């Protein structure tokens, strides 16, 4: 069937393969506020934080590598969103949000190690020039659809947010898990979702997992393999990706992880996740490689590629997260250290939807979170929602047009 004939059928005739690449720790404003892309809702110099008597405005000049890792545990994000010294009280409503505590938190938190030198605290309010510092991301944002209301699934760190992508829940986890907690779920052969994961729902033959094979070998351990039923040995090197796509690729869903760089020394250097302490370049090249592989494969005309960031990594964002639907999946309270009800989204993150079936240069203001990926897969491929979160989530299928574009660039990046 040719591409435009497919448009006469259902959406599952148009999009047969969904690809997701999830990078690390950047807020929407940090990456795109200064991009000049028209129509985005973004921070300006009028957006400020006050700390220790000084006022810090949002602006440019973000360092290529952050001097320290900004905090982004639940307790950090509460302070970032709700103001200096704000705390979440178990059983109480989420404190009022005004996005006023990013600088205060960066200056003082020790959840990721030593705080920065006092002269560096405004780094957290700085954005990058995406067109030069992350040119592949910028090109995709201007060639396809840039979502400016995609939020991380909870106000917290990497692990629970990545779990939301895979299961519309974190089984109550609201923090980076401790060794004792992981040991308990390892007794169950891995992290278990009360209602299963998207991989369970799709079945083994319908998904593929890859991790970037470049960079520091110490960081080539895929987080997705913490989930029950998925092993490190099931995650292919991305070196095979292009050849796989060219050879009878049938997987409906493909999830790709970056490499995390030097995790042993907490520098994250020489990875491709765009971790704040590592910089943007290698992750941008990863984006370009994945795009190029899909774009130049036989699957391009049937593909939807979503690029996401797991959470904001502590960076300032000007948009206040709204109310979210709790998963309501019967998760035990054991992993829920704070008593958080999962009823508020996390900070806004960059998200780009790439397909020959989406409009060029559109900015989408629809509210999404990571469970929107699941909602998309489920509605596209006739699967039941896993939890109330993905059941109520917006999908990206409304971005699909009836025309297969012929003007999409074959290669991107510097």
């Amino acid at each position, binding site marked *: 069937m040719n591409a435009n004939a497919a448009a006469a059928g259902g959406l599952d005739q148009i999009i047969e393969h969904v690809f997701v690449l999830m990078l690390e720790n950047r807020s929407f404003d940090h990456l795109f506020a200064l991009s000049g892309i028209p129509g985005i809702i973004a921070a300006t110099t009028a957006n400020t934080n006050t700390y220790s008597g000084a006022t810090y405005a949002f602006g440019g000049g973000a360092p290529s590598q952050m001097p320290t890792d900004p905090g982004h545990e639940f307790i950090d994000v509460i302070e970032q969103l709700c103001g200096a010294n704000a705390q979440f009280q178990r059983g109480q409503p989420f404190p009022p949000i005004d996005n006023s505590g990013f600088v205060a938190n960066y200056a003082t938190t020790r959840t990721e190690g030593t705080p920065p030198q006092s002269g560096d605290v405004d780094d957290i309010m700085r954005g990058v020039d995406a067109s030069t510092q992350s040119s592949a991301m910028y090109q995709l944002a201007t060639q396809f659809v840039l979502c400016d209301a995609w939020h991380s699934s909870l106000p917290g760190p*990497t*692990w629970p947010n990545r779990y939301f992508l895979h299961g519309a829940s974190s089984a109550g986890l609201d*923090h*980076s*898990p*401790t*060794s004792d907690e*992981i*040991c308990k779920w*390892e007794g169950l*052969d*891995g992290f278990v979702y009360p209602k299963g994961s998207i991989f369970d729902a799709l079945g083994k033959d319908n998904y593929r997992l890859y991790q970037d094979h470049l960079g520091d*070998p*110490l960081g*080539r*351990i*895929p*987080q997705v*393999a*913490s989930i029950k039923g998925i*092993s*490190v*040995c*099931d*995650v*292919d*090197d991305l070196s*095979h990706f292009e*050849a*796989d796509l060219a*050879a009878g690729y049938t997987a409906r869903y493909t999830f790709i992880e970056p490499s*995390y760089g*030097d*995790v*042993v*020394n*907490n*520098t994250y250097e020489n990875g491709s996740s765009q971790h704040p302490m590592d910089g943007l370049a290698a992750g941008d090249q990863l984006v370009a490689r994945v795009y190029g592989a899909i774009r130049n494969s036989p699957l391009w005309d049937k593909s939807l590629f979503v690029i996401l960031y797991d959470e904001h990594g502590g960076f300032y964002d000007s948009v206040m997260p709204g109310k979210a639907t709790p998963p309501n999946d019967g998760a035990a309270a054991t992993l829920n250290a704070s008593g958080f009800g999962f009823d508020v989204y996390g900070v806004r993150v960059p998200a780009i939807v790439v397909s020959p079936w989406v409009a060029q240069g559109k900015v989408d203001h629809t509210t999404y979170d990571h469970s929107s990926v699941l909602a998309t897969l489920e509605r596209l491929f006739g699967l039941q929602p896993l939890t109330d979160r993905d059941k109520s989530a917006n999908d990206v299928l409304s971005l699909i047009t009836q025309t297969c574009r012929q003007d999409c660039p074959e290669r991107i990046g510097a």
Partner: protein
Amino acid sequence: MTPTLDRDHELVPDPSTLMGLLHVLRKAHMELVGKDAAHQRFSRVSTRGDARQYIEEVMPHLMKEREKRRQRRHGGGK
């Protein structure tokens, strides 16, 4: 930046990305050598230097198994 080896004596922070990913390796290692042997090896990881050694020791075995599974998935092709 602190030179790599200067931090080898530091304990692996808990929780941390490193600790989480070490457990991911342990989970996969259990599939290869059984729970007891994997646990025994993992229990010797205390410092960042131990973690580096653990990753460098376990990962090649997992990569071999990964390739075997890949061959099986693709019917011996590619």
